[in-house]
């Protein structure tokens, strides 16, 4: 499943880059993220409770930031698994100057497996898109909160 899009941030790429490398901001912005512990350079262990309505699952896994080219781009490699199945994400994030701000272009390759994939296909795309949208909204809020 491919989910692509772009979001504009009201700050220069250097600042947005910083934000997208701040584990605390990432933790707060990630829907359902309960824990995000640094376990190595650009490597984190996470516990996330993700889902919609009653269909929630707790996933444990790792998040790795790869191929860093500050402040232009990096990749996020996310692997999580839990009783509803597993989620593997390979996300490319690009930070492009746009006016005075930054346009973040993202392309997420989301692979879902296990029970939730076999039952939820009807809504996985929409829910995935929504969750990613929520993440970027919250990151924008983080930026604003930081600025004020």
């Amino acid at each position, binding site marked *: 499943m491919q989910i692509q899009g772009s979001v504009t941030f009201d700050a220069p790429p250097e600042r947005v880059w910083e934000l997208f490398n701040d584990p605390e901001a990432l933790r707060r912005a990630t829907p359902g993220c309960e824990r995000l512990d640094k376990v190595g350079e650009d490597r984190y262990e996470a516990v996330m409770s993700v889902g919609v309505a009653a269909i929630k699952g707790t996933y444990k896994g790792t998040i790795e930031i790869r191929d860093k080219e500050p402040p232009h781009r990096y990749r996020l490699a996310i692997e999580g698994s839990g009783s509803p199945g597993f989620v593997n994400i390979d996300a490319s994030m690009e930070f492009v100057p746009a006016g005075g701000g930054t346009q973040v272009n993202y392309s997420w390759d989301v692979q879902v497996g296990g029970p939730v*994939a*076999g039952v939820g296909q009807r809504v996985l795309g929409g829910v995935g898109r929504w969750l990613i949208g929520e993440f970027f909204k919250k990151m924008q809020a983080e930026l604003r909160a930081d600025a004020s």
Partner: protein
Amino acid sequence: MATRYFGQPIKRNEDPRLLRGRGLYVDDVQLPGMLHMALVRSPYARARIRRIDTSKALAAPGVVAVITHADLPANLQGPLPPLIPHPTLKHHKTQFALAPGQVRHAGEAVAAVVAESRYAAEDAAELVEVEYEPLPAVVDMEKALEPGSPLVHEDIGTNVAAHYTQVVGDVEKAFAEADLVFEEVFRPDRGQAQPMETRGVVAVYDRNLETLTIWDSTQAPIRIRSGLAELYGMRANQVRVIAPNVGGGFGPKIMMFYPEEVLVPWLAMKLGRPVKYIEDRREHFFATNQERDQIHRVQVAVRKDGTILGIKDVFLYDTGAYIPYGLIIPIVASCTLPGPYKIPNYHAEFKAVFTNKTICSPYRGAGRPHGVFVMERIINRIAEELGIDRVEVRRRNLIQPDEFPYDVGLIYQDNAPLRYDSGNYPGLLDKLLKLIEYDQWPARKEQYRKEGRYVGLGLALYVEGTGVGPYEGARVHVEPSGKVWVATGVGTQGQSHQTTFAQIVAEELGVRVEDVEVVTGDTGAFHWGTGTFASRAAVVAGNAVALAARDVKAKALEVAANLLEASVEDLELADGQVRVKGAPQRAVSLGQVAVAANPLRGTIPPGQEPGLEAARYFNPPQSAFSAGGHAAIIEVDPATGMIKILKYAVVHDCGRLINPMVVEGQIHGGVAQGIGGSFYERLVFDENGQLLTTTFMDFLIPTAMEVPDIAIDHQETPSPLNPLGVKGAGEAGVIPVPALFVDAIEDAFSGYGLRFREVPLDPNRLRQALAEAGVPGAGSTAA
């Protein structure tokens, strides 16, 4: 004149129990102290297992045992035994009871949890921690053949399990001499039988008697019995397998072995308590065998009058992660392709390809729908290219009634020559055209078009190999009560054996059908045989029943001749009696004869066996070939791609009919499954081998709203190969449906140049194709 039973639409003996809810399906077996098994299954299509930690699961409430591959005894650790070998099947890879360090399809069993209830077992299964190392999976069979593709079985260095070619005549010459040559590629996709009852196994071991009793929703209880005895190192008579009522089979319930069939009895022996496993519906989607995905690349050589000179079909068969069942499906597909047509030069070649998906084994039709789909699509292409009516093209290529036995020139799945025993294909076609009112169709279609409606007529013909060997047997036994008890090895999953076999016996012995009790699928009652599959039970077991009944009749006459002081020639069996012809008051009941045949005192003649009983076997020399034609009229809403079947007609020839009501029921059910496989049911895997359809919310079995009324006519060309003259009927209904379905849709839009090469279609695909072809209303600007 005695009452006739054979050929009559008689009500079923099995029904009163089933109607009262008193059937015995595996899940109805409840034993004191019974434990329940749940399996931990891989969420990955291909992965190495790094570590399994069962400690938390073992500590969960109600848990009795948690088993991984390492806990299995040596005899259960290796690949499970192959079922049907073939000389060209070089890599006969088979599945494991529990995965040994690597999984090859999503849903493969990794660990087994045994607990006091299924609820507790599922709770604990969630606590088994498995650390996987996911590996790239191969899902698409064409990609599986590319260099550098991930390998399902690394040790063999290829994803090709087998490569097999059969050739009839001189295909190159045919193509050189042809007026018209063309090529097509056809892609039937994957589906599944989905009987309403999932699989289930219950086992109990008696330590004092050292006997193992197993209830199994299998189509082949005797083979399971023999195989398990061998696997566990027991005598065959220490193991009893009972396939009680089986809630639908349709092919996949014959397997040697599903992991659960091996695990449950072993656990029952190991734990000293009865163990039950009932597969749930979600598991069924990826743990029970599937079928149907093939890719056919076919070249055709034709003369300008429409006669076919040669066909070269090269295809891929997706076998999934293992190939226990061998090459039956692709061989049947190759052998079904020629159908009722004369194909003098034919090259049939296939590769069986491993992919990281659930195993394939025969599902009702077992390759036949593929062969028919390819052939009937070819015929339509010829009709279109040459401007000859599609029915006329068929007529010009049909095998004629005086050409039987007709040798197709291939070797069939039973390793015997593919030789049609009897038939009348032009007769079938004529009946079909009459039933669907083909002569009025052009005018009707024009009328529909005037009304702005897109309605098409599709038809398809097929020949079906049925009644394969090697053999079946039956024992017929008359009780002192005069009731007859019949035991045979084939199980029943709804095919009405308790009635049709009873009719055969009733006809021979002159007793009422309801006085004949037929026991099927219990190795404790009869322990020789192979199973119910491939439309064979009525042919192979039915004839064994008839032979045994005839022996009983002969014996009854002999014994009664003594009692009545008459000669055998003067006696007849009727109304439950043996009586003197023309003097019905001189009679003894069959029960009295049975008593006399098994006296407590006195003598019986030397050489005569005790009891009014006989067991016989029937070994058919080769398959018997049924045939049929289906036609349908289908309306399409081009704006939505939704369809409505306005009319459905079937003409069917399965030789002599034992019970027309039962045969028609088999056809109805097959047609419904065919409709499902043509428009509704598709198993969808993503590129990583995840099955996305694991509920009935996404795998769409037709309901009563989607299946039309079905008009049926019969033709009877008795088989000369067996005493009853019967041929099989179990799969007939499903075989031609995909072919006629797309034919009807193409006909509805004739003039737009549509050609469908894939099944199943669905509203989305159909509307897309119509939009691309420029059909009014289908395009994206339409309101």
